[in-house]
């Protein structure tokens, strides 16, 4: 399931029908990535909406020129999702320090661990997945769910290929430990 080989580029996307067709082609992949990173259905929808808005503005400004649509939109979405999760984590930490986390849980659709409660993914996946730092999680989702190579993941995350390989190794190692502990407890 490769995602970066779409031959369509950004030219002529300012036409409403062309933009609609681009959205129709790319929204599935963006939803999978956003849901994997954030774990929340509602946040994923919001991020996808922002991603297309940013992409359209980039077309108007001429900032988006040659890059293929799937690669561009995925890159924008991943960066939005990472920023969102980092902000969310910082806010949760502050709320925990001042003891207001219970008050805000229902507003952000998350539980005490910051895990989404509106997810359509079974909870045990979410618990293990959200034990990973957001960069490791993003790399893993792009690699496993979207089938991107380490080089392609590196392009999307703005990191080197070596750094991405490290992220993937660490993510799998953490998962191994957690799954093993889970297995022993049963």
């Amino acid at each position, binding site marked *: 399931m490769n995602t970066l080989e779409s031959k369509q580029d950004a030219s002529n996307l300012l036409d409403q029908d062309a933009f609609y067709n681009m*959205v129709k082609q790319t929204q*599935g992949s963006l*939803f999978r990535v956003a849901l994997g990173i954030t774990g929340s259905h509602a946040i994923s929808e919001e991020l996808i909406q922002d991603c297309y808005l940013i992409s359209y503005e980039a077309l108007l400004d001429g900032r988006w020129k040659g890059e293929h649509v799937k690669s561009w939109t995925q890159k924008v979405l991943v960066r939005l999702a990472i920023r969102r999760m980092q902000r969310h984590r910082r806010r949760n930490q502050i709320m925990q320090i001042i003891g207001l986390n219970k008050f805000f849980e229902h507003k952000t659709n998350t539980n005490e661990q910051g895990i989404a409660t509106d997810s359509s*993914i079974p909870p045990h996946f979410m618990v293990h997945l959200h034990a990973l730092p957001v960069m490791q999680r993003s790399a893993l989702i792009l690699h496993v769910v979207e089938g991107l190579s380490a080089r392609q993941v590196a392009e999307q995350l703005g990191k080197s290929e070596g750094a991405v390989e490290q992220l993937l190794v660490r993510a799998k190692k953490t*998962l191994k430990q957690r*799954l093993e502990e889970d297995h022993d407890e049963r």
Partner: protein
Amino acid sequence: MSDEHHNRDHQDTMVNEFLEEMGGAIQRAESRLPSPQDRAQTYTEFAIQHADTPTSWAPIVVLAVVCISLSFIMYIGLQHIEEQLSVTLL
């Protein structure tokens, strides 16, 4: 040693199964979404309606030049009036 190997294989299998099931769960979640056409329409309309048009700097620069010129003319004019007044009063 063989126990260690066996254990490592077991852990690898667990992780691979987990990742495979997780991928499947995400794809099932995607397939439960409402019609792709309707969603694409909503996203497209939102993007087109809410996009900020790029800032054109030309009118801003012209306005700034006009404002500076007017201020300068007023400054010269006021100085002239002040000189005239002081001459008249003396």
